[in-house]
């Protein structure tokens, strides 16, 4: 079963400024969009979900875990896709990069090569397994980053602006993967997508809108987005 994501009076203060303030929300939905202005606190909220940022007040639970208390287990359960693929590709070649995730997930060394090959095949990267990762195209890099995150089979996937700099085709492909999965099924039980791409956000089951460190609104994506757009019309 899906325990959902829940936050209770979640607050984050860094160097004396309050970045996130009293966020309370329960999200059993499968696909969650997070939208809002620059600096509204979207990324900070996303980062509390896998313990990259620790709440300074309140608490958050994801997949039945408290990331602040059990960061290691939370990171196994919650995969995180960053917007810049360059920073996420940690190893010189795609196959080594996937192998790194498998190692972190405790897969024995003997099985890693085969699993890595399968993972790369799933994202159409087989032909690029051993070429220098930096020579991949932007779209391929973003797919590799996703493959590396999914290699450890997280239950929840958090993606922070996953379609930035991607063209229509690549953005569509990334969006389809995140929201609908592929032949192998959905990518995770729950997917949280932080994005400025409102077309992508509209395809989720629920949308949260942050503003000035607060959760300003949540609900049906179309309505939340319409009101957000209206503010800037």
């Amino acid at each position, binding site marked *: 079963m899906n325990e959902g994501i829940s936050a209770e009076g979640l607050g984050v203060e860094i160097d004396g400024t309050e970045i996130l303030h009293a966020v309370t929300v329960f999200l059993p939905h499968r696909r969650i969009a997070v939208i809002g202005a620059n600096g509204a606190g979207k990324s900070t909220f996303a*980062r509390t979900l*896998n313990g*990259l940022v620790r709440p300074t007040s309140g608490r958050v639970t994801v997949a039945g875990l408290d990331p602040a208390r059990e960061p*290691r287990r939370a*990171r*196994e359960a919650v*995969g*995180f896709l*960053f917007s*810049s693929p*360059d*920073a*996420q*590709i*940690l*190893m*010189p070649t795609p196959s*080594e990069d996937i192998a*790194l*995730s498998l*190692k*972190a*997930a405790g897969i024995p060394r003997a099985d890693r090569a085969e699993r890595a090959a399968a993972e790369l095949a799933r994202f159409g990267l087989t032909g690029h397994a051993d070429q*220098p*990762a*930096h*020579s991949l195209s932007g779209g391929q890099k973003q797919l590799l980053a996703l493959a*590396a*995150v999914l290699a*450890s089979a997280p239950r929840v996937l958090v993606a922070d602006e996953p379609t930035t700099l991607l063209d229509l085709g690549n953005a569509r492909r990334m969006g389809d993967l995140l929201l609908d999965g592929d032949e192998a099924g959905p990518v995770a039980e729950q997917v949280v997508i932080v994005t400025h791409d409102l077309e992508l956000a509209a395809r989720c089951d629920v949308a949260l809108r942050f503003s000035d460190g607060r959760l300003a609104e949540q609900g049906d994506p179309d309505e939340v987005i319409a009101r957000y757009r209206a503010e800037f019309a």
Partner: protein
Amino acid sequence: MISLYRPGTSPLHRLPAGAKLIGLAVLALAASLWPHTIWTALGTLVAVLALFVLGGQPPSVFWRQLWAAKWIIVLLVVTQLLFSSWQAAITVTARVLAVVLLAALVTLTTRMGDLLDALERALGPLRALGVEPARVAFVLSLTIAAIPVIAGLARQVGDAHRARGVRPGPHAIVTLLVLALRHADDVGDAITARAAHP
């Protein structure tokens, strides 16, 4: 970043990395401590040339290695001529070159991974001092992956200067450092998020 290793199947390629490293240490020490004359020094250089042949390296590779050592040659010859004699210039230059080229030959015939493994084994005793071999291997891979990214950032900074009609002087390094350190923080977060820190 492409290693200087040149793939091949020569006897030197097949020798284990550890053996080559020990051999290099012994031969280098012997060649350095031997009281050379011009002729023994040149002879040592010729012997190294023979080893290049044994290692399946064409003459062009030997010349390229010599060319790479041009500053060393200049440095040695000039200082010896200044402080000693022309005979000493030849002897010392030939002796040092022989050792340098011998070491280069090990690099040319040994895979990076094998050298790394040998290094990891050598590092074993340092574990007591808190040096984790797995961590060392991780940071090395991380660096190899980061080099092209940082080179790309340097290109971006250069372009941004040129586009504004400013010559990218030393000051451009500040912008490069900012970009690189931000990148490092992102990499750090990605390591944490992927639970990849050994």
